[in-house]
């Protein structure tokens, strides 16, 4: 039996639920050396800012057990180059682009959303409310539901109405569910969970912080259980809100875990650094797992971990 792999996110249909996560897919060109980017659900761009940005000094990364610490500082060419060079290239290859945006305040976010949604071919906007390592500090909107709501509201108001706006949140915020609710009340069409987790490593040789920024973001399989819990909690509180789950997805089984916790699509981030074709491998593995379980469509398993043990799920999945 083949499973229908299409998934819907706030009215947008994607051919499958596996996405390349923000900041982990380059411009798309680099990954296209390893697989056809049209095959995956979508490519989320590195968070686009208004101006070019040099990011943080090196060293920017350190390896940690089953994870990676990074402090890139949102280096990027700015929205102009993105629109002129990167977006057209992605579209020319049949890629579906989700534009991630980051700004210094609600005004910048809104301006980015306006320009990006005016461009042909952007499928969705993802509002990065949670990057823990901007070079200049100050992106900690996500600590405050009111501030996050203000940004989301501004973005939604300036985004073409047929383009869904997803707010991307970190897990290590004072109250994730309250924050999620605030974003939804500010008319976010969905939520992306989670960004990397504030963390740090000390180089045991120099006894100095291992990345130049001191604190960085922890990502990779190490944080998967935190991502699963975050998706589970938010889905329990806001079952109608579509979620993109991410954090440490390495295999199809990991993707399935996030779907069962309540995500309708899954982002693959850090693992792409170690396995450049991870996205398509994970898609294939997920498809196999769903077929083994006799799922007719992806949505059969979305939120499965919330259903009471036994009955309905077991029935659907033929176990």
């Amino acid at each position, binding site marked *: 039996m083949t499973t229908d792999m299409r998934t819907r996110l706030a009215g947008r249909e994607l051919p499958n639920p596996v996405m390349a996560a923000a*900041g*982990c*897919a*380059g411009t798309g060109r*680099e*990954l*296209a*050396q*390893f*697989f*056809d980017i049209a095959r995956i659900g979508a490519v989320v761009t*590195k968070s686009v800012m208004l*101006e*070019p*940005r*040099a*990011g*943080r*000094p*090196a*060293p*920017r*990364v*350190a*390896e940690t*057990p*089953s*994870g*990676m610490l*990074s402090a*890139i500082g949102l*280096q*990027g*060419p*700015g929205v*102009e*180059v993105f629109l*002129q*060079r990167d977006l057209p290239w992605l579209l020319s290859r049949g890629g579906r682009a989700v534009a991630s945006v980051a700004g210094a305040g609600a005004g910048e976010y809104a301006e980015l959303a306006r320009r990006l949604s005016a461009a042909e071919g952007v499928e969705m906007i993802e509002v990065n409310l949670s990057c823990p390592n901007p*070079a*200049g500090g100050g992106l900690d909107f996500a600590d405050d539901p009111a501030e996050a709501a203000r940004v989301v509201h501004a973005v939604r108001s300036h985004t073409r109405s047929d383009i869904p706006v997803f707010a991307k949140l970190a897990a290590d915020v004072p109250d994730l569910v309250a924050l999620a609710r605030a974003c939804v009340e500010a008319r976010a069409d969905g939520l992306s969970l989670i960004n990397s987790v504030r963390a740090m490593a000390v180089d045991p040789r120099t006894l100095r912080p291992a990345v*130049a920024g001191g604190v960085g973001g922890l990502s*990779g*399989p190490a944080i998967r259980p935190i991502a699963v819990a975050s998706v589970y909690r938010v889905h329990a509180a806001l079952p109608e809100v579509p979620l993109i789950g991410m954090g440490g997805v390495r295999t199809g089984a990991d993707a399935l875990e996030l779907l069962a916790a309540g995500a309708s699509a899954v982002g693959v981030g*850090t*693992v*792409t*650094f*170690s*396995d*450049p*074709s991870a996205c398509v491998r994970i898609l294939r593995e997920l498809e196999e797992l769903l077929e083994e379980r006799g799922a007719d469509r992806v949505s059969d398993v979305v939120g499965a971990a919330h259903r009471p043990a036994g009955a309905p799920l077991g029935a659907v999945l033929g176990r």
Partner: protein
Amino acid sequence: MSDNGPVQTRSPVLTVRRVDAYYAITVVAPQIAERFRSGQFLSVAVGGEQSSMLLRRPFAIHDVKPDYGGTVEFLFAVRGPGTAWLAERRQRDLLDVVGPLGRPFPLPRDPVNCMLAGGGSGAAPLFPLAHALRRRGCRVDFVLGAASADRVFSAISARRIAETTTFTTDDGSFGVRGRVTDALERAMDDARSDVVYACGPMPMLRTVAAVAARQGVPVQVAVEETMACGTGICMSCVIPVVGEDGITRMVRACVDGPVFRGERVRFDDVGTIPFDALGAPGWKARGEDSADPQSGVADREAG
């Protein structure tokens, strides 16, 4: 997907050899061998499928042979858990290898005199380069340095390929006591070098670039920066490089390098974001074209 881009392979190990303080691993990887040009590197997944070590380890490609459809050799020193795991590989084990990665050394069109300077295991990419230069009729001279005799890299093959070979060791246990850069100027004079190629630690590259500048000779350096992906997607490996347009950009050592023109690398500012770099805090855009961080770094003609 593309014909000269990198590929990801599961490559059987052909041999694991101890060479002085180093290990040399040869894997069967026809597609990498076929695409390879000197200066490029590969990256290896370490620790197996359930490894806690998430990141690939990058290594310069030291040799490529046509056997078994195409083999690739890299050399390494055991430095941490990743290289320790690699040192334990045996024949027929499979390695997950991605390569060839990065931009190769540009080769001179004319048969000029080439000085190759390498420090420690950093010397690895100079050997395929030396062969390529010789095939073009260039004269090749080596200055190779290391901490001690057992860390001097492939001394014998250097002697075989090169017109002259100068060795330096920090402890004087082999060749001249001192650093590569101490012996370089003299060697360049003797060899009447027209161009310098250098690989090794950043401080050595800085000095080599300074020496070459003093002598008015072009220099190509291959840098080693911490790399998370090696394929250009993570932006972890950036160093400040001046473009043709005079603008400094934070460029990726893995795909925009590892080979750069020495005079373009702002060695003194490695590990910082220079205030005048494109997109540095306070920086102001001067126009759309210069705002493209890729533009202006693609020139890599040598000699």
